[in-house]
Structure formats: structure tokens, C-alpha cells
């Protein structure tokens, strides 16, 4: 029997450019590749020599959907390098901004990028006729996330207001009140996301044990910040030690660096967070999680969408709580702490919408960037995505090309990849 090659040249409804190649020979899946064809941009290199404030402004250009996550992580790493302690107000506003990013990104992914697959549409806009309510509510939820980023960060994408030391300007109370209103209105939409995702028919073929990694949240709350990383296999290590646990290497068959944990592919993202930190959820999100826990297969990445939906409920509710806390937390104090650059290195790992985001930055005494290492969630997930593509191909190889392609696409999309985001990316 001859070799059958199935190729998806341009993976749709993901951020960035990538494709899938599967080779089937004698009914055996010989090769499963996740090809990333984005051009190299080399942020870590060309930003060397730039002053810290420009570096933290340019790094987020790595990725648009998680630009706030990038910016806030770069800022935290820089502040660690300089030994800056932001005020409590600043920390609260930052977390709210970060949650805005989570809400926007998850809503976008669940409603516009992933859902059409399961409902049999090429895109969300074409769903409007039959699923108008879902689409408009999804957009509304997404807008809520965007409005948080706009009012706190200055805009929906690339938030120039978030600075090392704090913010150029803190939001006004009117802004916060307005956001609270939006959030309250959006909560039912987030719950609708849970309902929708829970009712989807998820193919079982990609079930295979998964090692999950997530940040161990700071302060015992389900949040995006933390000082330790823990795994579903019971490991725990401080963020500064990531290098000795996560090994990155260049693979000859791929355009991007891959990374392994203890020599194995691993997963990061919403599903991993739920697996590891789900017990910290509160309120309605907790209820939903308790209720659905039994049905979630943590060893099948396609459940990631459901995990994102549950997180949506949490992030919306928690954002309301942060706003209430901010309103009662007076006086707010200065928006910006004085920044005194010094030579040093800082590492921050946070939970971006798609999972662990590593920033490791070093500066000289004038505050110029001398070294940087950025690892994004998609780069981390790349190895496991390829593993799962292979599994899916195995399970669905009996299907004709078109249908097989459709199923293959489900896999990377479930991980919500952010291809332009995979910083260490290079052409062969």
C-alpha cells in the first residue's frame, strides 16, 4: 500500500500560521507533525540593549490575544530584577487586567474558534442565523474582557498603560462601576458557555495519560500569579528553577523549539489549571466544577474547552469581587512606584490564558535588557499536540481525507494554540 499524506496547509481559527501533516503508511500513522510556519521574529534577541520600559512594551507584541498576560509577566519579572514592590492597589488592578485578558481570550476561543467545529459550521458568523443568541452572548462576554483591558490597560490589545512600577493612570471609579455592570450582565453568558461545552460530544480518541503543569497560585486563591510550579505527578519547584525541569530543544523536523518535562510531553492551560488548582475555585464556578468533575476526562485535551468555560465563570465572578475590594480599599495611593533600575535577573511565570508563560529577564545597572528567555504556552504544548494529533489520526484514519482533516484540526484548536506566540520559532 502506498503512502497516504494528509495535510492541512493553513490551520484556520487559530492565532498565527500553522499546519498539520500526517503520513499514513500500511495503516500505520508514521508521522504526525504540527508545522508552524510563522516567520521568525526573535524578540529575545533584538530587544537586547533596550531600556526596560521599552522592552516590556515590545515583548507583548509577541502575541495579541494574550498581550496583557505577556506584559504583566514581563513586568513582574522586571520588578523582581529591580526589587520593586508594587502597591496593593496596583496588584489588584493588575490581577483584574489579567482576568480581563482571560475572559476575552476564553470567550473568543470557546464561542468563536472552537464551538463552530462542534456545531458543524465553518465559523461563528455563519452560526448567527441558527445560534444567534450564543454568538451575540459570546461576543458580549468577549467584549466584557476587552472593556476591562481597555479601561485598565488603555486598549484591548497591547496595553501601554501597564508599566514597571504600576500604571500610568489608575481607572476611575466610574470606569470600575461600568465594568462591574458589564460583568454582572455577563455572568449568565459565562454559565451558558459551561452548558454549551458540557453538552458537546467529545471524541475519546485522544485519551492518553497527560502530565499537567500549572502555577501554584499565590495566596491560596485560584489566580494567575504564583511562585511555584506544580505538576499532576506531584512535583513542585520554584519558578526560578524552571530551567532545570523544563528542557527546551530544537527538533530537526519542526520549525519551533519543543520542550519536555522530565523527558515527556506535558500540557499547560485551562484543563491543567482545573486539574491542579480546581479545588480553589469559589462561587458558581465551584458549583459547576463540582457538578461536572466526574464527566471531565483530564487525560483528554479536548476537554480543555469545558475547562475554559468553567474558568470563564470564575474569572467573571472574581473580577466582580476584585472591583468591590478596590472600591473599599482606600486610599489607593500612587499609581506608579518609583523605579530604580539595577543589574539583576528576574523570573516570572504566570498563567496566561493558554497556560504557563515564562519570562526570564536580566538587566544591566542602567536598566537595559541584557538577556531574555521567553517560553510561551503554545511552545510548551507543541510536543503534546503532536502526540495527540497522532492519536487522533490513529483513531480516525478510516475516514476519508476531508473528514480526517476536520478531526485532526480539532486537536490543536482544543489547545487554543497561539502560534505567533511561540517565541522560539524558526524556519528549518
Amino acid at each position, binding site marked *: 500500500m502506498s503512502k497516504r499524506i494528509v495535510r492541512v496547509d*493553513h*490551520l*484556520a*481559527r*487559530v*492565532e498565527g*500560521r500553522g499546519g498539520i501533516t500526517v503520513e499514513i503508511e500500511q495503516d500505520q500513522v508514521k508521522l504526525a507533525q504540527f508545522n508552524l*510556519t510563522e*516567520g*521568525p*521574529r*526573535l*524578540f*529575545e*534577541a*533584538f530587544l*537586547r540593549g533596550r531600556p526596560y520600559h*521599552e522592552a516590556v*512594551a*515590545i515583548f507583548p*507584541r*509577541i*502575541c*495579541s490575544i494574550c*498581550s496583557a498576560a505577556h506584559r504583566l509577566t514581563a513586568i513582574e519579572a522586571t520588578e523582581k530584577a529591580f526589587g520593586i514592590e508594587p502597591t496593593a492597589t496596583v496588584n489588584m488592578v493588575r490581577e483584574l487586567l489579567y482576568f480581563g485578558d482571560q475572559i476575552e481570550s476564553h470567550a473568543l476561543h470557546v464561542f*468563536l474558534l472552537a464551538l*463552530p467545529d462542534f456545531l458543524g459550521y*465553518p*465559523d*461563528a*458568523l455563519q452560526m*448567527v442565523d441558527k445560534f444567534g443568541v450564543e*454568538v*451575540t452572548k459570546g*461576543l458580549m462576554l*468577549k*467584549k466584557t474582557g*476587552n472593556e476591562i483591558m481597555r479601561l485598565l490597560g*488603555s*486598549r*484591548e*490589545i*497591547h496595553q*501601554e*498603560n501597564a*508599566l514597571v512600577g504600576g500604571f*500610568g*493612570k489608575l481607572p476611575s471609579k466610574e470606569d470600575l462601576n461600568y465594568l462591574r455592570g458589564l460583568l454582572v450582565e455577563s455572568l449568565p453568558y459565562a454559565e451558558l458557555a459551561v452548558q454549551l461545552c458540557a453538552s458537546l460530544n467529545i471524541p475519546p480518541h485522544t485519551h492518553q495519560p497527560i502530565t499537567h503543569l500549572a502555577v501554584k497560585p499565590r495566596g491560596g486563591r485560584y489566580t494567575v500569579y504564583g511562585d511555584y510550579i506544580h505538576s499532576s505527578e506531584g512535583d513542585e519547584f520554584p519558578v526560578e528553577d524552571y530551567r532545570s525541569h523544563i528542557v527546551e*530543544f*530544537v527538533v530537526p523536523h519542526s520549525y519551533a*523549539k519543543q520542550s519536555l518535562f522530565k523527558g515527556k510531553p506535558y500540557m499547560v492551560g485551562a484543563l491543567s489549571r482545573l486539574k491542579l488548582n480546581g479545588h480553589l475555585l469559589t462561587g458558581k464556578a465551584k458549583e459547576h466544577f463540582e457538578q461536572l468533575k466526574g464527566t471531565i476526562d483530564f487525560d483528554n485535551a479536548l476537554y480543555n474547552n469545558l475547562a475554559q468555560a468553567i474558568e470563564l465563570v470564575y474569572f467573571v465572578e472574581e473580577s466582580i469581587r476584585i472591583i468591590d475590594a478596590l472600591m473599599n480599599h482606600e486610599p489607593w495611593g500612587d*499609581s506608579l512606584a518609583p523605579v530604580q533600575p539595577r543589574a539583576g535577573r528576574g523570573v516570572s511565570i504566570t498563567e496566561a490564558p493558554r497556560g504557563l508563560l515564562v519570562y526570564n529577564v536580566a538587566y544591566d545597572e542602567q536598566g537595559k535588557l541584557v538577556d531574555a528567555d521567553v517560553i510561551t504556552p503554545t511552545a510548551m504544548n507543541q510536543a503534546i499536540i503532536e502526540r495527540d494529533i497522532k492519536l487522533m489520526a490513529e483513531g480516525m484514519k478510516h475516514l476519508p481525507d476531508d473528514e480526517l482533516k476536520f478531526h485532526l*484540526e480539532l486537536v490543536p484548536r482544543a489547545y487554543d494554540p497561539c502560534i*505567533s*506566540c511561540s*517565541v*522560539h520559532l*524558526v*524556519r*528549518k
Partner: protein
Amino acid sequence: MERRKLKVGIWALTGCYGCQLNFVNLEDDLLKIVQNVDLEVFYMATRANNEETNFDVSFIEGSVTTPEDEEEAKKARERSKYVVALGNCAVNGGVQGFNSTQDFETNIRTVYGDDAHFHLPFGLSKPLDSVIKVDFYLYGCPPEKKDYIYFLTTLLLGTWPEDWTIPVCAECRLKGNPCVIIERGEPCVGPITVAGCEARCPSHNVACIGCRGPLKVVDNSDAMALTFKGKELPTDRILDRMRLFSAYKDLSKVEEALRNV
């Protein structure tokens, strides 16, 4: 006058996808504008892409960084009446254009180490109009949401958008902000940057970093450099600052002005 739907393509070269995402961010307006627009190509949002059509307008995001980028740009050009450089990467080559001012091989090694043996046909990020003819520019990193609507509605009315030709400072004043150059001596590039963002950053007490790119109709970067020099910013910092979003811009005028002080 009768009106017909516009055939639109949204293409992506090398960038962060933010320009396209901001199109999706139109949210309520997105549903309205698609009444008059057929999105024939939009990989970020749909699986149903029809590259084999004649486009009224193609928005192209991203810088030209790989040979595939160049091919894609040419393909879109051939099939489109108007081509729009969408966002700073396409307009000016993007922040990644900064590689052009440094040694690319070294940068590659910095990121990938020595174990990577790859061959780079060309890896420098160039503006779109360096490889194809561009009819319009939508500035910004990312462009403003209202720019998309203005652009599409003017085309639908049978005309075309007016270009932005005023600097960020103008909008900074319209907003009633204090000036960060005067007050804090910070290197705000508002005076030489294309307006349209309503002076977003100075409105947040942050110096403009020039994400909408340098003004095209008039180049006052030499005067800007003199002002920065007066604020005791060293020459290399001045040049770097101006290259942040437009590394491809010819700064010889600036260098000359600085030499003569």
C-alpha cells in the same frame, strides 16, 4: 446609488495577529458590517476560505519575513482591487524589523543556541510596500477599531478613506492632556507619530512609543532628535527610540542633525 457587498480578504504574514483580532473585537459592529461585506478569506475566524476570487479589498497584516510571506502578498495583490497594509508590521515592518539594525546571525544564535543548524533565505522583516504596491495604510499596533469601520464604509459609499496626516500631539491637545516632554522630559515621539489613537498613551501619562509609525507626509524626526538631545538623551537612544516601530525608516537626516549640534 446602488450598493453591492464588498469582497474582503484578511490575510496574515508575520505578526502577532492583533490587527485581525481587533477586527473581531468590533463585536457588535462586526455583525453589522458583515451585512455589507463578504469575508472571503479570514483564516483566523473561519475554515471557509475562498482564495480564488476577485477581492475588492485585501487587508494584509504582518511584515514580509519569509519567502512564503512574499508569495502570499503577491497572490493577494494579483486578486485585489485595493490592498491595505494592515497595522504597523505591514506598514513599517513591525517591531521585528529591528533585527535589520543588528546582526541577524547573532540574533538567531541568541535565541536558538548553537545546536540549531538552519538555513535562512531571508529573515529580515520588511514593510509590505517593499514587495507589492499598497493602496492604503491602516496605522497602529494594532489599528483602531474605528479605522476599520471608516475604511469599509467609505469604500461602500464609493469613495475611499482620507489618510491620517497629523501627529499624535494634535490629538493630545484635543484631549486636554499635559505634555510629557515638557513636564517630565521623557522621549515622547508623539510629534512625529501618525495620529488616530486619540493620544492614548499620553492620556495615560505614558510617553508615546510611536506604535502608529512615523508620519508619512512630513518628516520632522530631525527636529525631534534635537529636542531629545536637549533633554540629554544620548544619540544611540534617540535613534533606537525612533526605530522602535519603524526600523526601516531612513534616519540619515536625524544622524546628520545630531552630528551638527
